[in-house]
């Protein structure tokens, strides 16, 4: 971008990123502008987590967003890009959790899946071999003899990342031979473990999770992958499938038993903190509302454990900057 020198600041907060965090960010924005009517109401754009980081890490200045919403942690590479573009002070807040839910219509076939089975059903090359499974019964003879049809998120979405990381990779690594590749050829390992089949059994659904819900409700043979909040919203029509023996319920996800649970984050550009009026207050709106009885749980978010919440509240008040080292060492516990 070019343009004339900007003398005026921006009087509205700009946040971009995850479509999973989007509803919570909207709620936070709404709450913020009610509490602080003298500030302009924040602009929230849903671009997907990856897209959000790209915009966010573009640089500092009015034309770049102040906040990136994320349904996964920022990757070291992304943080590097940020730093390279001058976004050197990024603050990470874990605002809560969301489960990736695998679900089907209430009239559906009622599976009991494991991450391994999900991997075998969805991988492009399960364990490096060509994908041959057409029907569920090809995966496990006890499964119904129905074609595999899974609606899921596209590669731009963080939900897809989580699916790849939390479920597919987990399933993939359960095979020792494949796990061994990890050290030899990381690239190949990633390809084997995360690439999703594209022969029509896995149908990408754009960013519009809502459509998946509707489709499942009307097609009992299909199953879908999406955020837990969508499942909760449609609990009268959909049934969550247990994964590794745990149902996707609030409790299971909050406790971390359900394998598909993932933390949600917002990333703040600290350099903008003074420059964008209201940014501090917006962040405190998040902090005030992320408790178990807060605004966000009513929208389907799962609150972090009190310890995690307290630690993040601390980060928020001190505006502790995220370093590359943090990303490698301390995976924040779920």
């Amino acid at each position: 971008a070019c343009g004339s020198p900007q003398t005026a600041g921006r009087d509205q907060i700009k946040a971009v990123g995850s479509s999973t965090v989007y509803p919570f960010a909207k709620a936070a924005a709404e709450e913020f502008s009610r509490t602080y009517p003298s500030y302009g109401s924040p602009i929230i754009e849903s671009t997907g987590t990856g897209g959000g980081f790209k915009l966010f890490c573009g640089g500092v200045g009015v034309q770049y967003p102040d906040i990136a919403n994320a349904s996964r942690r920022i990757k070291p590479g992304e943080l590097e890009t940020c730093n390279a573009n001058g976004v050197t002070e990024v603050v990470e807040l874990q605002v809560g959790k969301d489960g990736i839910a695998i679900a089907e219509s209430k009239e559906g076939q009622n599976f009991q899946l494991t991450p391994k089975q999900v991997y075998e059903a969805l991988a492009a090359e399960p364990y490096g071999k060509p994908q041959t499974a057409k029907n569920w019964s090809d995966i496990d003879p006890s499964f119904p003899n129905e074609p595999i049809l899974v609606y899921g998120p596209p590669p731009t979405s963080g939900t897809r990342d989580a699916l790849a990381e939390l479920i597919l990779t987990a399933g993939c690594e359960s095979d020792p031979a494949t796990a061994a590749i990890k050290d030899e050829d990381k690239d190949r390992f990633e390809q084997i473990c995360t690439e999703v089949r594209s022969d029509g059994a896995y149908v990408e659904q754009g960013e519009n999770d809502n459509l998946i819900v509707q489709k499942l409700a009307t097609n009992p043979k299909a199953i879908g992958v999406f955020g837990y909040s969508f499942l909760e919203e449609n609990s009268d029509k959909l049934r969550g499938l247990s994964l590794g023996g745990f149902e996707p319920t609030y409790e299971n996800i909050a406790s971390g038993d359900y394998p598909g649970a993932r933390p949600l984050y917002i990333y703040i550009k600290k350099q903008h903190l003074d420059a964008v009026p209201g940014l501090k207050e917006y962040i405190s709106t998040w902090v005030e509302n992320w408790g178990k009885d807060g605004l966000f749980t009513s929208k389907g978010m799962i609150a972090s454990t009190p310890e995690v919440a307290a630690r993040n509240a601390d980060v928020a008040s001190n505006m502790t900057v995220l370093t590359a080292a943090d990303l490698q060492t301390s995976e924040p516990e779920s």
Partner: protein
Amino acid sequence: MSQAADLAFEEQRRIRGERANARIAKRYAAERRFKLLAMLSVVVSAGVLVVLLIAMTSSGLAGFTRSEIDVTIDFPEMGLSIDPAALEGENAENALRTAGLPDILQFAATQQYGPEIAAEVGGSASRDLAKKIVSDPDMLGETVTVSLPVSEDLAAAARGEGPEELRAVADRLQAEGQLGRKIDWGFLARADATDPQEVGIWGALKGSLLTMAVTLVLAFPIGVLAAVYLEEYAPKNKWTDIIEVSINNLAAVPSIIFGLLGLAVFLWIFPNLRSAPIIGGMTLALMTMPVIVISGRNAIKSVPPSIRDGALAIGASPVQVVFHHVLPLALPGILTGTIIGMARALGETAPLLMIGMRAFVASPPDGFTSPSSVLPVQIFLWSDEIDRGFVERTSAAIIVLLLFLLVMNGLAIYLRNKFERRW
């Protein structure tokens, strides 16, 4: 001419006439079939329109209402302490909030309905109540029964969706007449929100109006002037050809390409005007301009040359001929084209997605440079929402948009019929 030839001729004529007679019934049947098919296609085409309108209206009318619950509050009893002067200013609603209005409301609701239901008297209810108090401060001295929006969960239960228990509660409240659907005028006055009970169309509508204003101000004069130039003055040369070809082509360029133009050019020059009506308006203006030029040219062309000749022959200059005679006569046609072009711009979604007009903006835009959404994009966004309460809100927004478009199209047709003349 020989007698024999004449006879042969008559015979031939007779035979052929008989053959023709034999076929006549079949030909008429084919005629009827053909006519029927043609008529059917009109009926089907119009029928689809009717189905579409009925589908939208039937699901959309409910979107103009929302579930509200009656709450009785005895204000003197509650002892809300607030300085009456604070009820005047901009911050009155906030002052009421800080003075503890939400708690009072919760208390009253709990007293009346018990804690479970009181929890469903949503956060928005206290804001609505605050608004009511600000508009009628005398309330604070009385015991009043106010109708307040319930949470989306209860509203969904009232529609017969969601968990069983809540549905039973909703049914009971509805039977007792305490919970019901009320016309929600606020829908036309509020902006986007996260709760379907709380959303409004005004933010997006205002964004649309601002965007349209920019479009009109840019596209109309440029379009008309270009039309005048091309139709009346342009010399026949390569440059004119290039201009003509580019205008005709621009009219056919998919709208999304204009979005790419806005993204790559306008947002590159003005990066901090992402999502702003002025950028949207500029983008749509480029899209609308060729429509205006083409309809303008047709309107100008249809002014008979004899009028121009008449004026030229008494010594009017070419510019006078156009501005005194041609343009006034072509104006209805130009306006018709402009309205149609504007209507198309008003319904346009794709290019605006490209330039960030899909953001969540919770307050109506202040001006041409503040971020906003527009009506069709708002519809698109709402159609994506997970809350099922948004389904009827989306249809309601569609009704609003269609009303605007029908009015605009109707106006264009009226103008065309009224001023259609044959010289």
